[in-house]
């Protein structure tokens, strides 16, 4: 979506056009939902957070000035809600090990994946969930959501250099966690 398209879309939404908002949902619903699922670890919570995010987006679209790309702005709103969810849940959350187990099981039970892929995905998934929140956030946004460093920096409100170092450190940690990955795997090239 070009900047001009985005501007027109925002103007139509600001004018009260519901179909325009549905177009926005077409582009961002799945991405925001996946992001929310990463932070909530449960489908009902992810749906609730996604709904809150889009409600907030709708209410505050009147203030969107186009200083940044619409996608960046949406991710910023979404990240704020996700981080707020995480902060609240910390107060009475499950122990870390249980959380990891829950998430891992969700992915293991995906019937589409083959047994190898399930095992592989489960281990990567578990490793990602072992990361610190700061490292996990950049992995989720960059690797899983496909945002550029610049977009991740905008979504997290940190310098690009911070994104770089966090990503690098996160991958080092993943390497520690998945130590045998390189040695036992076969080259893909």
């Amino acid at each position, binding site marked *: 979506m070009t900047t001009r398209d985005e501007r027109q879309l925002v103007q139509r939404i600001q004018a009260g056009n519901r179909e325009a908002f549905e177009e926005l949902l077409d582009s961002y619903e799945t991405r925001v939902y996946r992001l929310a*699922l990463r932070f909530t670890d449960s489908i009902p919570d992810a749906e609730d957070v996604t709904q809150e995010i889009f409600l907030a987006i709708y209410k*505050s679209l009147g203030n969107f000035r186009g200083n940044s790309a619409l996608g960046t702005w949406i991710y910023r*709103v979404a990240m704020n809600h996700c981080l707020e969810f995480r902060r609240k849940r910390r107060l009475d959350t499950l122990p870390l090990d249980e959380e990891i187990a829950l998430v891992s099981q969700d992915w293991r039970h995906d019937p589409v994946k083959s047994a190898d892929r399930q095992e592989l995905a489960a281990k990567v998934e578990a490793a990602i969930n072992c990361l610190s929140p700061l490292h996990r956030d950049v992995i989720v946004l960059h690797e899983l959501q496909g945002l550029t460093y610049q977009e991740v920096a905008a979504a997290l409100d940190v310098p690009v250099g911070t994104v*770089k170092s966090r990503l690098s450190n996160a991958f080092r940690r993943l390497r520690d966690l*998945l130590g045998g990955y390189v040695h036992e795997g076969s080259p893909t090239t």
Partner: protein
Amino acid sequence: MNRSYPENLPEKSPSRRPNVCRGGLFQANLKAYLDGETSAIRGWLVRGHLAQCAECREELRWLRRLGEDMKELESTRPRPELRARILASLPTTPPAPGIRVVYSRPDRERSPLLMPRLALASGLAMLLAFGTVFALKRASNATTSGAVGVAKNVPLKPDQGKVGEALAAAQETPPAAMEMVTYTPAKDPFNDLADKMFREKMAARAEEQRLLGQDDWHRLLAQAREVAHKTNMTTPTEMGVALAVPDIAAVKTHLPGWAKQKGAELVAIGKPASETADHATGLPLRTEDPRANMVAFYVPAQRGPAFLGALKQLGQISILPLPSHSFVSAATGQIASSVQAEIKADGGFKAVPSAPVASESGAPAEHSVTASEKHLKTGRYLVVTVLLSTTHD
């Protein structure tokens, strides 16, 4: 698919990671390099290192493979009911402009700019408060003297003062079509304040430039460290210097040997390839000075002052208008494709087409960076980028 992971994830990070280059200088950049997010110079240096280091090539393969695997994790789609829920929850009124929504930022570090912003905001608030009190006082004085006198002299029209009738008339008038209105204040004291601050900053920078040469190395070092701190960079630290010389070709001829004498190493020489780079540095490198070159040196930290002193003997030096990190980032990808070059035996300059990329099969690249292993391993060195241009008249 023949990949596998260990059965049980270790609880703690092992103290030693096998199969990783111990130099520690390039691993921090491998991920950014893989994502195409390194600065041009840094990317070029990483490529050169990869040509020599099998461990880092393996590390790069591992990073790429894990990244590919992670992308496959995201396959979940929301249930169709979610969209209906979202749409049903929207208010019936369109989003109204003018209400600023401020989001909390609970999980991030405090911005380094936050305190100055708060200080500025509180200062502005005090100014506003004083201004309001002053204005109220003036208004109060006016009301008790001249304003009343003037009002007494103005004849009232028959329909004035009838508030109810005026409101009714206003309601009957159809509202004008909504349009964007840009408000530009005729005189904004805060703009003046900002202008003043900007001018002072520029004056300070000009003074810095003038004083360059007294304690410049330590100041450059401090600047480079500041950039590194802000961007969370680990070594190597980059710094940028502009060097204007009378005769570029003559200087270039002696650069490799000269650098070696000073304990530094010339690792890259080439030309900034983009207008963006020229714009970022403010130097007329491409458009006005086609002979200008960009040179990168490894300089051991302890030899830094001597190196900079030697540079000053070659010509006029100055700090780049922007930190070198910004400068290099501004031209990401474009410099890298043309920076490769070699100095011919007769001292001339010859561009080498397309930067060689270290092949992952392990074959050495055609050209490689020849930095000393001791420099790479100690990490106590700087990458000094020198923009070489002719002396301005």
